[in-house]
């Protein structure tokens, strides 16, 4: 089990290419998801301060 | 539908068509430059000056790869099945470089009509299959 996981990770030396792609994908999705949340929080803070 | 909306739709469609026509004209004019490489036949018919840096592409002809024993030098033919071009290259080939596979080379034509490449890129096709299937296909052929 552990051996096959290691094989999957290394992928005949091509692993770094594949995992780098996955990392880029996850980072870009995360940034796009977090920005609107931060934006809403800021508006909420500003809006409640005004009252 | 409201006449104003209809008018807006007509305006959008007209402008869009205008952009498309303009783009088609521009792309037609630039058509030669938009190709990444010349095929061997195009190289024969056009008179590209020897020495100018260009890209040529095609299939590596089967059985044409000659590797030097004491250096990295390799000579091979690229073909579009009508004409072919002899390419000399001195360097490390990409993993996917093989006979009957697509290749794009960058370099220049020499006076003798052969091509001296300074860069070799492998062009892979759109077919994917597991190794076992590929082996079976090979056997049936």
């Amino acid at each position, binding site marked *: 089990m552990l051996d096959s996981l290691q094989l*999957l990770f290394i*992928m*005949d030396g*091509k*692993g770094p*290419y*594949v995992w*780098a*792609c*996955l990392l*880029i*994908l996850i980072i*870009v*999705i995360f*940034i*796009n*998801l977090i*920005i*609107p*949340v931060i*934006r*809403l929080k800021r*508006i*909420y803070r500003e*809006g*409640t301060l005004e*009252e | 539908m409201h006449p104003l909306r209809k008018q*807006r*739709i007509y305006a*959008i469609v007209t402008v*869009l068509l205008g*952009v498309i026509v303009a*783009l088609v004209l521009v*792309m037609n004019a630039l*058509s030669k430059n*938009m*190709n*990444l*490489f010349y*095929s061997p036949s195009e190289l024969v018919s056009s008179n590209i000056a020897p020495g100018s840096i260009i890209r040529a*592409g095609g299939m590596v002809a089967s059985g044409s790869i000659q590797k030097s024993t004491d250096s990295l030098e390799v000579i091979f033919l690229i073909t579009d099945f009508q004409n072919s071009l002899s390419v000399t290259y001195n360097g490390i080939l*990409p*993993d*996917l*470089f093989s006979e009957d596979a697509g290749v*794009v080379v960058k370099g220049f034509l020499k006076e003798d009509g052969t091509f001296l490449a300074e860069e070799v*890129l*492998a*062009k*892979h*096709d*759109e*077919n*994917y*299959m*597991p*190794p*076992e*299937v*590929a082996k079976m296909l090979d056997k049936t052929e």
Partner: protein
Amino acid sequence: MGSPPHFYKWATRSLPWLAGLAVIVFCVGLTWGIGFSPTDYKQGDVYRIIYIHVPSAILAESIYIFMAISGFISMVWRAKIAGMLINSAAPIGAGFTLVALLTGSIWGKPTWGTWWVWDARLTSTLILFFLYAAIIGLHSSIENKTKGDRAVAILAVLGVVIVPIIKKSVDWWQTLHQPSTFTLTSSPSMPPEMYLPLLVCVLGFYFLFIFMLTNSLRGEIISRERDKSWVKKQFFKY
């Protein structure tokens, strides 16, 4: 129906369901593709980048088409929500275009032997990225939001001509990039155990886009309507 309060309510209610669906399909597709599909006879395991690269590229084009349709609705019917949809979708589209470009580059190095060439497919995709950037920049540079919506709608509609150019670039011109594996006219040039996970990935990416768009639309609506009474009631709760 097309009013911002209605959309905000709908977006807030559906968000957890959309998130769940997107995460499940997305994870199943990627795990299947990267972990369990067979290796390729020529490229080996590096071909698995296809399960990230192709869905990202499909979304990059689809999201632009979505923005063009929204732009058309925004121009003809002057629906405020259509403008908001473009603004919410643009950063997501730019993100997926960037992923398609970067993963393509990472895939190119071990297979073609280069990170980048200026062939028609790669160059037209880069233009798509700049179009997204132009839309994001244009809207934030125009103070008057109604005028900004109009300018952005025009760019979204006219820019859509890049999509068929990207799609057909590999057929019209000689490129280093290979032609499409999937076409409408013939069967895919890969076996089912390779294209089924890819199909699930594409589906997962689409669900992910709907989730991300809904998430981003909430921020856009509240930001644009923050002075309206319904926002005070529903968002600030007083």
